[in-house]
């Protein structure tokens, strides 16, 4: 682990050395972030992407959707909890009903029968709950392996993972297999988006950061944030 941090530190220092531009007030740690970003990109290009491509070749879309549904179903429990914490009781009940129907009739979640019944999937996490409670995002932060975040959302992510039912799975070997499957499946879903980002952005780091910050703001307000007028 120490070695890992040394690599990180090195990457971060490299970042500081090359960034001479004016700082974005939302991103005071840009030098550090760009270092971690480069580290993540390297891991992504040499490990995550090749594995995700092999996975896509190996398994049919139909099966990959089932895998995604399984993880999505488990997450509905805490999506519900977060809706309750934000005072959105109807949504919370909806999420728990989804979990109930999908786990039973949907065979442990691999079939999303709840959506067909009209119970909509929501997007909530602890970072959004903190935002809803009034916590500002704080500086933008790139997390090793996980990517875009902020100080607030990073704290939220830590709790998301802390409480995730997946962490309780035993034996450990099975839990780790599930973690692996989750990451590979998620990366596979994003292969196309990554290619589009590559095409659309002049500076991928900036494009991704701004999209992330806009997206999180929108999510906290469930899609209708107070409008910021562009001049």
């Amino acid at each position, binding site marked *: 682990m120490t070695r890992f941090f040394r690599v990180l530190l090195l990457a971060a220092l490299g970042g500081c050395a090359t960034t001479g531009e004016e700082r*974005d007030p939302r991103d005071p740690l840009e030098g550090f972030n760009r270092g971690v970003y480069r580290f993540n990109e390297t891991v992504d290009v040499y490990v995550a992407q090749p594995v995700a491509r092999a996975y896509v070749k190996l398994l049919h879309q139909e099966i990959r959707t089932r895998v995604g549904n399984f993880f999505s179903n488990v997450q509905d429990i805490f999506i519900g909890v977060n809706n309750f914490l934000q005072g959105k009781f109807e949504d919370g009940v909806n999420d728990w009903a989804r979990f109930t129907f999908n786990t039973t009739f949907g065979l442990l979640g691999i079939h999303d029968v709840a959506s067909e019944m009209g119970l909509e999937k929501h997007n909530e996490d602890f970072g959004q709950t903190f935002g809803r409670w009034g916590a500002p995002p704080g500086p933008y932060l790139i997390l090793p392996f996980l990517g875009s975040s902020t100080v607030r959302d990073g704290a939220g992510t830590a709790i998301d993972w802390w409480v995730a039912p997946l962490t309780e799975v035993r034996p450990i070997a099975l839990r780790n297999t599930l973690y692996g499957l989750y990451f590979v499946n998620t990366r596979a879903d994003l292969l196309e988006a990554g290619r*589009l980002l590559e095409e659309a952005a*002049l500076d991928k780091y900036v*494009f991704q950061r701004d999209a992330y910050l806009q997206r999180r703001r929108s999510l906290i307000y469930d899609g209708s944030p107070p409008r910021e007028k562009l001049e």
Partner: protein
Amino acid sequence: MRTMMRIFLFSLAVLAFPVPAQDAAPDALVKRVTLEVIDLIAKDKEIKAGSRAKLVEVIEAKVLPHFNFTAMTALAMGQNWGKSTPEQKKRLTEEFKTLLVRTYASALAAYSEQKFDFRPLRAKPTDTDVTVNVRVLQPGAQAVTLDYSMEKTANGWKVYDVMVGGVSLVANYRTEFANTVRASGIDGLIKDLQTKNRSLSKQEKK
């Protein structure tokens, strides 16, 4: 986030056909055109066979009339727009348009059958600046929202921004543009856009 980027860019391409009735309500316009484009993609043999050139051709001929690219470029440039000469403005708009068209084509090529939920317009009939909301439904994932910012002009309703899942396309280019202008001036930005477009067109030919 899955498929969001794809839908993001795809959404820009859906307003693809010339409108016979210029004063049609903006939400009705978005709906009709979206459905028409989906139908077209599903039927065109060349596009289905993976012809990127045909897609770009379709977008240039059909999509562009419904977008106000000058307004989009001006918004993305922010304060630097006012500091640009008319010649620079023209070239910026041209290059930005080319970049967007190419990325639309990629997004369109990746289109797979999603379902659309067209939301009723919440605006007064006298409004000249409205937002049309569409939701893209996909099994097993949260619906993605598309918000078209549209302005009424003498030539009918024109899109000047698209928000996908809460991410505004125009706003997202602002920092990139501002950074480049600060580092290498407006001409530097034009050059960067040209270089980007050239490298994309090379990839296309491969």
